[in-house]
Each structure stands twice: as structure tokens, then as C-alpha cells.
């Protein structure tokens, strides 16, 4: 294949990875930014989103798009509810102690994973995409659905940015993030905000999973990769920074696409890890993160 079409394919693949990664990492970054919690179970919320998408699409009959639309709405809601319950029952009880929350979310990871194994089973199952449209380019064909993932993710990111910076909800979140005690003193129900933020973070992961599941498959062990990549993205981009998350997701996703198409996927992972190391050494707060106050 000539160089330019090859590069085009690589970029498209990279953009799909970036799109899903940006949503997943944004969830992780948001939870850390506001609550100062490292949510190790984040990948499992992603997996839960995909598994629920399978369950919902197989329950809905008729055109695949109907089931997919239902999954896109219901699956994040259910995942958000599960996250909210876990936040209220576990994380709030240990008062967001940094060490305790890491252990608690690791526990949550295993519980969710084992529940998925028990009730969903160990198989990888496909979800029918809402539409099957193949775009024929002169050199190769490409999935129309994959392109729609990029568009959907971009819209969701814009919506997230709008909520965080232009609405009262965002203001409350940012106030809580800036100073928990002062926010409480001003009458902001910090506990409820935390519950909502944790649920929102999980919902973002679930939405990303519903979008990706028609082109991969739902599997009970699928949470690990998104978790690791999200960590890489938030470390590179800077914790709690929306702009940093998006830029880092683009950087990691597109470079992953290009390096793995032209060289090897293993090299892409090596370079991503190296990037994390360099960022930690030279700019520990991340490319766009603010230094700790």
C-alpha cells in the first residue's frame, strides 16, 4: 500500500482509539480531580458497560439500531447507579482516605469482575452495530461505524466541557474540587456531589464501552486495557484537566495507531510507557495539570 493511504488508515485507527480513550480517561480524571480518589475499578465500569450493552441489545428485538440506542441510554445509567451505590456504601464510609480508597476500589474491581463472570460467563460476545456501512476508499474500505464513534465521542466531550465550565453543576464540582471545607461551609452538599461525580465518571467509561463494543466484543476481562491506557492518559495530560485529557488521549491514541501500523503494536506500547516516564520526570503534574497548591 502506498505511503499516504497507509498513513490515512493509521490515523483513522488512531482517532478511533483516541475517541474512546478520551471518554474513558475523562471519567477517571474527573473522579480524581474532584474527589482525589484513584479509582482502580474504572476499567470494570467500562467492562460492565459493554456487558450490559450486550445484554440490552440481545433483549431488544427488531432493528439493531433500536437495541443499540437502548443500550446507549440504559447501560450508562445502570453503571452510574452501581457506581453511586458503591460510593455511598464504601468510599464515603472510609472518608476518601487515599490509601484506603485504592484498596477499596481494587476490591470493587474483583467483585465486579467475578459478578460478570458468574452472571455473564467467560465468553466474548459480539454486539451488532446499529448500522453496517462500509466506506470504500480507492485503496481500502473502512467501517462507517468506526467513523461515527469519533463523531459521537467529540460531541460528548464538547458536552462534558460545557457542563463543567458553563453550568451550575460544573461550578459546584469545581468548588468542591478547589476546597472541600469551604464548599461545605457555603452549603454545598459535598457528599451528594461526590456520589454524583463518582457515578458520572463511571458513566463516561460505560458510554465509551457501549460505543466500542460493536467493533470489539464484550468480555469479562476487557477492563484492564482501558484502565491502564486511561492512567497513561491522565498522567500525561495532567489529573483533573479536561484539556489535558483530550490532548493526551489524541497523542496516545494517534501515535499508537501510527506506530502500530508502520512498526509494531508492542513498540507503540513501549513508547507510551516511555512517555509516561518522561512526563513523570520532567513535568510531574502532567502536560496541562496545575501544580499542587
Amino acid at each position, binding site marked *: 500500500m502506498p505511503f499516504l493511504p497507509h498513513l490515512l*488508515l493509521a490515523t483513522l485507527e488512531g482517532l478511533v482509539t483516541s475517541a474512546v480513550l478520551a471518554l474513558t480517561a475523562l471519567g477517571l480524571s474527573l473522579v480524581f480531580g474532584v474527589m482525589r480518589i484513584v479509582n482502580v475499578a474504572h476499567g470494570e465500569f467500562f467492562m460492565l458497560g459493554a456487558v450490559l450493552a450486550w445484554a440490552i441489545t440481545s433483549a431488544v428485538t427488531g432493528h*439493531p439500531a433500536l437495541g443499540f440506542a437502548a443500550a446507549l441510554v440504559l447501560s450508562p445509567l445502570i453503571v452510574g447507579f452501581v457506581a453511586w451505590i458503591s460510593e455511598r456504601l464504601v468510599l464515603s464510609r472510609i472518608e476518601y482516605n487515599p490509601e484506603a480508597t485504592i484498596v477499596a476500589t481494587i476490591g470493587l474491581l474483583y467483585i465486579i469482575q467475578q459478578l460478570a*463472570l458468574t452472571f455473564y460467563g*467467560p465468553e466474548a460476545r*459480539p454486539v451488532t452495530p446499529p448500522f453496517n456501512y462500509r466506506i470504500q476508499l480507492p485503496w481500502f*474500505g473502512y*467501517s462507517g461505524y468506526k467513523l461515527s464513534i469519533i463523531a459521537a465521542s467529540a460531541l460528548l466531550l464538547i458536552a462534558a466541557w460545557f457542563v463543567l465550565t458553563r453550568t451550575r453543576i460544573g461550578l459546584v464540582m469545581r468548588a468542591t474540587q478547589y476546597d472541600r471545607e469551604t464548599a461545605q461551609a457555603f452549603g454545598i452538599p459535598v457528599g451528594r456531589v461526590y456520589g454524583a461525580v463518582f457515578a458520572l465518571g463511571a458513566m463516561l467509561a460505560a458510554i465509551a464501552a457501549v460505543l466500542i463494543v460493536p467493533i470489539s*466484543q464484550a468480555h469479562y476481562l476487557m477492563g484492564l486495557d482501558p484502565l491502564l491506557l486511561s492512567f497513561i492518559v491522565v498522567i500525561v495530560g495532567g489529573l483533573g484537566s479536561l484539556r489535558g485529557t483530550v490532548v493526551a488521549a489524541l497523542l496516545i491514541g494517534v501515535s499508537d495507531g501510527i506506530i502500530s501500523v508502520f512498526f509494531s*503494536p508492542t513498540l507503540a506500547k513501549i513508547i507510551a510507557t516511555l512517555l509516561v516516564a518522561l512526563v513523570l520526570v520532567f513535568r510531574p503534574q502532567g502536560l496541562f495539570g496545575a501544580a499542587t497548591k
Partner: protein
Amino acid sequence: MTDSNGFFDLSRKNISRRAALKGIAAGAGLMAAPGFVRYSQAQSSAPIKIGFQAHRTGIGAAYGRWYEKTTNAAVKLINDAGGINGRPVEIIVEDDGTDPKRGAEVVGKFASQHKTDVVYGTLFSHVVVGSAPTAGELKIPYYVVSEGYHVASGKMNRWVFQPGITDVRSQVTSVAPWVAANLGKKVTMIYPDYAFGYDHRDYFGPAIKAQGGDVIAQIPIPPTESSFTKYLPQIPAHTEVLYHVMVGPGVLTFVKELGEFYGSNKPQLFGFIDSLEAVDINSPGLEFLDGSHFWEGSPRYAQANDSEAQKAYRKAVGIDDNGASVSDPKDVSTAAHMFGCWETLYVIKKAMEDAGYKGPEDRAKLVEATEALTEFKEGPEHPQGDKIFNGKIHQVFGHQNISKVEGGKLNVVHRTSIEDGIYAPEADYTTQPL
């Protein structure tokens, strides 16, 4: 020999000949009577315990589930017919998570904790390779239902056997002439980047070269990969045949992405059904496979010329004419491999009978008896077809099927002979001490 008290002098007890005869007759009558405990002729009626190392979870789970169904069906028949050496067979299952480390632990658990007579059943080659040293150390016969060339290559040890299913080297050697003659001579290979894939890489190339063909590109893919489009540009444009073999959860995605990439303008495809085991050939996105060919160990779809043994086997394991579960048409079986469980159990039975196997103390005798086997006739015990066994390399050789996807089904278009898959052995396990 008597002492002064006559204690050991039986003659002084005066048991009459008549009484003795009566006793013997009664005993014999009891043994022959209908409904008498079936396992009476054995010295012990304790069950023969077979440890089943199953892939219940992990990437081999779909295979594991069907390996278990097949095993249970075969064991039921064996027990109904009187068990092995007059003793019932009991299967003890342990999940290895399709993980080599856990696999070795499971073998240890069977030997030390469950005290099973043998270990059996593993499929994934990395689990076999990870578990085999433990079986050798603990001196417990380890009957695998895998496919890799690891057993026949001599890299395992004297305790490891593959008597129920052919190995990859034999499979690719026997299909190569057909591929070169019918599909094309310039081949690009896509295979998983671990032992099982390397067997394809290492043995298909020479086999196709012998037919005047050539492997023009080789594309290894990590077994955990979930997206494949990025590899597809590596396929050279002048490829005539795309040879694909994949395993794990990503295979359906692989075929779909191949379809999106090529559309109708595709090279000939030759795949190993491993890529689509347990996957419905009519799944959305797989229309792309129409007209392409697959290797199958045993055909998934019932064929017009199926033997009575094959029909009885399909009925016993509970698969319909489409190779799906009779109770759930969406539950597609791993028909191309799972017959190996059935046949391996019958090989264990035969070897135990030949060895007069009584318990773990006879394990070495069992190894020798297995090595002494030479051929298996097609029939209820070997429904996939007749086979020959090479005791030196612990490997069986048999027929392979090449099937074409037509009208949403797989139809067998060519069946290789046993000789097509024979290669010169590179090892001799029988020289190793027991």
C-alpha cells in the same frame, strides 16, 4: 507344613469336597446373576479417577465448555458399558483459567490432592507447555487434547500424550497440496503470536514450498489483540491466498475488519476453523467468508456421507446438524476439536485395559501400554475416522477435512489421507527413563 497343635493342618478340619463345591457354585452363580453389582470382576470397585484440566474461564472458555460436554457424554457411555477394567470412571474437573501457571498448579492438585489416576483434557498449547513439566515431575500420565506440535516435537516428556487429535504440523502438511492446487501459490499468513501460531508459521511454509508455492508475508498478531485493521495493510497486494488462523475473543472482529478492508475484491481465503470455533458462521459481518475454505478436524455440519458412528457421536454429545447445541441453536459447538476428548478417553480406556491398570502404582505400565498402541479403527470409539499412533513421539495421525462456506454452511470438499500428514519423527520418548 504342620506344627504340633495341627493349627495349620487344613486336612484335619475335614471340609468335605461336597461343601467346597457347593460354595464355589454359589459364588459363581452370584457373580453371573443379572443385576449383580456391575463392577464385581474388578479387585476394587473404586472409581478410576480422571483429572480433567478444563479451560472453564479465560480465552479458552468456549472450548472448555464443549470439551466438558463431550467428556461427560463419553464417560456416560463408558460407564454404561461397564467402565474401565470393571470400574466406573469418575471425572474430576479443575478450572485452569486457560493460564499456564494455573495449569501447572492444577496438575499438581490432581496428583497430590485429588489423587487422580491420570490428567486429561487440556487444549491451549501454552497451558500444555506450562503444565507438562509438573506432570513429568509427579510422574502422572498427562493426556492432552491440544493441537500444537509440542508433544510430537519431543519437547515435552515421557508422561505427556496426544493420542486423540492430530498436531498442527500434520494438519498444515496435509492441507498444503490442496491449497496450492486449488487456491493459489502466493500465500500470506496471519497467525497468533505464540506457540500455536509458530507451528503454523514453521511448518506450512516448507509444505507449500514443496508444492511450488511460496509464503510471501507472515503477520504475527498478539493473542490479546482486539483490533486488527492496523495489521491489514501489511498484506502484500499480490497475495493470492490469505491463510488465517486466530484464537481468542477477537476472532469475529478480525473477520469483520477483513471484510470492511477488502469488500468484494479479496484474495482467496484459507482459514483454520479455530478462528471461528463456537461462532455461528451466519453472524452479521461474516458474509465476507462466503466461498472461502476452512480446515476442520471433524466437520461442524452434518455431512451427507456421515458414518453411523459419527451420527451416534453427534447425538451423544448433543449437537444438531448445524453443530449447535440441540437445546440452544445459538450455542455453537467446537466440533472441529472436541471429538478429541471422546477419542482420548477411549484411548485411555484401551491402554488401561492393556496394562491391567489397577491404580496409581501402575502409572508407568500405563505409559508403556499407551506407547505400544499403533492404530485406532474408525467406529464408535473413534468417530472422526481411523488413525495411526506413533508411540515414540506420543502423537496420533489421522484425516483432515477441508470445507467450503456455501449457503451459510460448511460443506466438506476434500478429506486428506492419513499419509498426507505423516512426517519424519524428530524424537523418541521411549528412551527416557520412567
